[in-house]
């Protein structure tokens, strides 16, 4: 529904919320940074996994 990027972003947001709940930052800037880091991490991991999967598929087609 959201596409790969959307799914990764959604996971990142949820992860960010969980991290904020655990860390309980005292400043807004801290909470923002936690959210940004989680979003970036989730999107990066998502894209990495996708690229690996596509590479594997391509390798399968060549064989």
């Amino acid at each position, binding site marked *: 529904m959201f596409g790969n990027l959307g799914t990764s972003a959604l996971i990142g947001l949820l992860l960010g919320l969980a991290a904020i709940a655990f*860390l309980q*930052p005292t400043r807004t*800037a*801290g*909470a*923002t940074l*936690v959210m940004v880091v989680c979003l970036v991490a989730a999107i990066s991991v998502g894209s990495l996994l996708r690229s690996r999967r596509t590479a594997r598929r391509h390798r399968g087609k060549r064989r």
Partner: protein
Amino acid sequence: MKRALLLLCSVTLAVLGPAHAFQSAQAQQPRAGAQPVPGASPLVCPTGQHVLEDRCVEDGEDPDHRSGNYGNLSTGVAAGVVAGALLGRSFAARTSDARRLVPVRMYLPAPAIPPRGIGAYGVVALRGLPTPATRARLWRLCQSFVKYLPRPEAIPNSVRRSDWMVTVWPLTQPEAAPAKKDDCDFVIDHYDLYGGISAIQDAELQGADLSGPGPFLIGWSPASSRGVKDKVVLTFDMSSLDSQESFDRAFIWWQQRVVSDPKLWRHGWSVEAIRLSVRDFFDRYGESALNAIRFFGGK
């Protein structure tokens, strides 16, 4: 205390047990001059005698009956002693579990550390005196120390000194008036540096990793375990803490987990310590990142 409770319970039950046994033995005897119960033995014995196997015998004359009484008595004593021992043991165990260390704070010069007669102690260890870069942070540390741990004068006499867990702030002039008023500026300026550095060195000798810039909370339980290899030393590394709330949390953790339950002491690793460090990291760099965005954004 434990032994006294055990003894008290044993003695009480040893007295109550035989008394009950003696009463029940007497209750079994028919009263002299009493009317026979229909269907029971029709024999009625005069005063001073009782019924035994369809005949009257003198009270205390029958050796079998007497031995029966003594049998009850000895069983009562044995049961009383055993029950008393068991009850006393469980009660004593419960009271010993309930016994906990009481957190106390003190200002002491390095030669007076550790204070005598206490159960356990910890040291607020700094690597250096305050500089313009560290003053605000150390002031916040001092505030948490002052606000979260009670002074010895506040501890009632009913709490024994051996139950104290003293957290020491090494101070060159503990008797000075500003120290008594908990003036944090004075307290951080007159920190006894030798007390802090030697505590760090002793903890490192015992295997603690204190490579950070500090401050540290270092604790030993029992008090005699300082500097002894293979003994548990508790460390809380506050190197990455910055905000007042984080220092407050650190002292709450120290108070709850460490002081109240030394069984939980480990070699300095805790989820709370990591959480506080990561949180302060994000708080600090989040602010810097926002400032950078504002700078480049032209606002």
